[in-house]
């Protein structure tokens, strides 16, 4: 061990520049954060936030610029060096080994517990208890990571980072997988901890930035475009600075007569991967020209519901009626041909073939149609024409339609999928987390596309955990909890609080007098 270093009280970055082949990821960035302060670092995907943090942690080396701790320049080669100076990071994707316990995960990083042929696991557990008591972050050191909820894992990450001696915490989009309640809870805890720590909070959710941070720095295309006190600026102002133009996410203004019933799901029961009944009697009705939001904490049957609708998972019992035809347990091909469009949850592996070109991904569902094939030969010219046309219409930003789709950004991959699904003219469209991890520009485009389809009379099932998105786009919102629809309410009656409480499985706090709500009472305790 090196001599004890004084605890970190200030971190300063000056002129940090990092180039990757063909990309300038960080362009002369200067930042500063002190003890007792929360700095929010805001920017769209690809703005260079994570690269910058990886440079601070010693995972990447900057091409130029200096990092100094307490006024003294430092050169970190590995995360261990950063931890030695009291800098720790909670990554967006949790850095926890799922088949090990909480204590074992901590022990990985605590070299003083590593003895020859013996691991002091009790020492690790004790350290976790001390820290979790001190910062009021309850954690059970003997639990296996895979048994914990996402919120609990988040707490484990915080405790782990503090146990490793971090006094400056870097939190990379810490709320992206949390429920609204868990998010509020986390923000409250961080506020309490902020007095004795320094925190860099990375996010693009501006209401959280507003709630937590003292100062905000905005990154765009690798450069800092704004520094300021959070209190003096409105979220809309920050959003405009972040994207470089005014952003107004489109809203569903209602209107239009309610359409004919289009899709009705009756008493659907579907098993999950572990053999449990992930959907246990789900009922839902969708009308033409309607967006029906399905809100819920992920893991309450959304995946299984979407899979069943697309024909990717066997249906135990129940019906999926599209215009009166039962599609339950039909093949994906039959369901596609019946007029069902599908924007899957995992766009990289289910939505596209990553190594295929953009133009080939655009005909993935229609390669055998008359339009694109002749005597089982592909009609290349027609495929090219189709691709160019869709690229234009859906604003797909790619070097050419021959580019491998997997090389595009998340937003552009999603546009490819949406283009394919919409161009087929579906009657019903199932969109699962359509803007997860996508920047605001692309989000705006995808939202307006969905609203346009609604106006054209397409019925859309929008499965999402982003309350903002569900509330902006839906006509009605169904809350899914433990494989059932707990309640359906008109979007105009929904508030963040009300949805949050329903998503947690609790009874509606403010039930409108006339409506009935099945099974809510049972879920209360």
């Amino acid at each position, binding site marked *: 061990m090196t001599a004890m270093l004084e605890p970190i009280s200030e971190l300063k970055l000056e002129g940090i520049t990092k180039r990757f082949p063909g990309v300038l990821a960080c362009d002369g960035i200067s930042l500063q954060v002190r003890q007792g302060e929360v700095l929010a670092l805001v920017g769209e995907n690809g703005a260079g936030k994570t690269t910058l943090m990886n440079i601070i*942690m010693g*995972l990447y080396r900057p091409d130029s610029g200096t990092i100094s701790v307490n006024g003294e320049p430092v050169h970190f080669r*590995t*995360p*261990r060096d950063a*931890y030695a100076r009291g800098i720790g*990071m909670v*990554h967006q*994707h*949790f*850095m*926890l*080994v*799922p*088949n*090990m316990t909480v204590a*074992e*995960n901590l*022990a*990985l*990083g605590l*070299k003083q*517990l*590593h*003895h020859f*042929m*013996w*691991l002091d696991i009790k020492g690790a557990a004790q350290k976790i208890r001390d820290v979790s008591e001190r910062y009021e972050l309850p954690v059970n050191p003997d639990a*296996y990571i*895979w048994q914990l909820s996402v919120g609990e894992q988040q707490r484990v990450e915080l405790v782990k980072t503090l146990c*490793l001696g971090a006094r400056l915490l870097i939190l990379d989009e810490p709320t992206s997988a949390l429920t609204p309640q868990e998010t509020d809870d986390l923000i409250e805890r961080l506020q309490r901890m902020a007095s004795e720590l320094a925190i860099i909070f990375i996010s693009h959710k501006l209401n959280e930035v507003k709630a937590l941070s003292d100062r905000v720095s905005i990154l765009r295309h690798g450069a800092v475009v704004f520094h300021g006190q959070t209190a003096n600026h409105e979220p809309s102002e920050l959003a405009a600075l972040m994207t470089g133009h005014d952003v107004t996410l489109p809203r569903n203004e209602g209107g239009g007569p309610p359409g004919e019933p289009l899709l009705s799901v009756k008493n659907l029961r579907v098993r999950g991967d572990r053999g449990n009944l992930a959907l246990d009697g789900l009922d839902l009705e969708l009308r033409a020209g309607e967006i029906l939001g399905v809100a819920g904490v992920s893991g309450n049957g959304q995946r299984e519901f979407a899979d069943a609708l697309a024909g990717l998972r066997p249906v135990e019992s129940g019906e999926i009626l599209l215009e009166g035809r039962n599609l339950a347990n039909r093949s994906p091909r039959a369901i596609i041909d019946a007029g069902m469009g599908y924007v899957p949850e995992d766009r990289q592996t289910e939505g596209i073939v990553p190594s295929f070109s953009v133009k080939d991904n655009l005909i993935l569902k229609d390669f055998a149609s008359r339009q694109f094939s002749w005597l089982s030969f592909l009609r290349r010219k027609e495929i090219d024409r189709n691709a160019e046309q869709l690229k234009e219409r859906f604003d797909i930003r790619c070097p050419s339609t021959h580019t491998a789709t997997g090389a595009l950004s998340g937003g552009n991959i999603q546009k490819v999928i949406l283009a394919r699904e919409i161009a087929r003219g579906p009657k019903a469209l199932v969109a699962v987390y359509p803007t997860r991890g996508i920047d605001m520009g692309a989000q705006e485009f995808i939202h307006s596309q969905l609203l346009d389809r609604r106006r054209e009379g397409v019925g859309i099932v929008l499965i999402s955990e982003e309350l903002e998105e569900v509330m902006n786009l839906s006509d009605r919102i169904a809350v899914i909890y433990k494989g059932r629809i707990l309640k359906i309410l008109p979007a105009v009656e929904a508030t963040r609080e009300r949805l949050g409480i329903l998503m947690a499985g609790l009874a509606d706090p403010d039930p409108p007098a006339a409506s009935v709500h099945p099974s809510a009472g049972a879920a209360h305790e």
Partner: protein
Amino acid sequence: MNPEVMIYNVLSLAVPFSVAILLAALGENFNQRAGVFNLGCDGIMCMGAFVGFMLPYSLKAGPLAPYGNLLGVMGALAAGALLGLLFALVTVTFRASQGIAGIGLQMLGWGLSGTLFRHFVGGVTGVEGILAMPIPYLSRIPFLGGVLFNHTPLAYVAFLLVPASWFLLYKTPWGLKVRAVGTHPRAADTMGISVDRTRYQALMLGGAMAGLAGAYLSLCQARMFSDDLVAGRGFIAVALVYFGRWSPLGILGGALLFSIAQSFQLSMQVWGIKFPYEFAVMLPYVLVIVVLALARKARQLGPTELGKPYNREMRF
């Protein structure tokens, strides 16, 4: 024939049969726990068998003759570790596909050992090998004594390695690192663990144990060397790791089950039971396939990054 005698015969034959696959599978388990599956295990066993045979054979007449067997075992361990190192270089440093590299290593070990044997030795030649060492008192227990305590020293070592590898994996810092780099290498990296170094170490240990398994075959079981001595046992060892769900105890169970089936089919031939022996020979292998197919999949416990090279600069 008396059924008790029949059972005794089957079991006392099954225990020595299980030693080589047990040793190799325990070693392969370290590889897989660290996220690398080494199909070349079989080739390493061939080289281990050859080196284990060659050293005592060539030292037979010299002053080192009394240490021939010991040197043979040490040589087999070293040769195995060296081939493990080679495999680590190819799959960890150069990030080659593990499946293909493993097949290559298998062919290398098999071909090289056979060629060297023909060049230096030629025909079938025996060595004295390592003799059985009955454990005093214990070996005289009726029934169990003959089944469990009347074997060569390497057999005892193999069975002691079952709790030893459990301890190493679950109770030591090194085991913790191995399990971490096989399941979530990036997490290990952010905690200051060198993923590459840990995988190198695991592959060398696994290689050394495969080498020892080979030496057991040539020095204790056959007391000779030939091309087909290993006869695919390395592949059985790889299957046993899956079979045992990456737990040393599970691997022991699998190794015993396979060996009992093996010894049962041999005994059937000895007893003269009218059954086509071609099918009898298939029995243990069919058993492994059936059990593998029917076994409950416990995904939470295994090394989920098995087979994937780690690259820090690669994004999600």
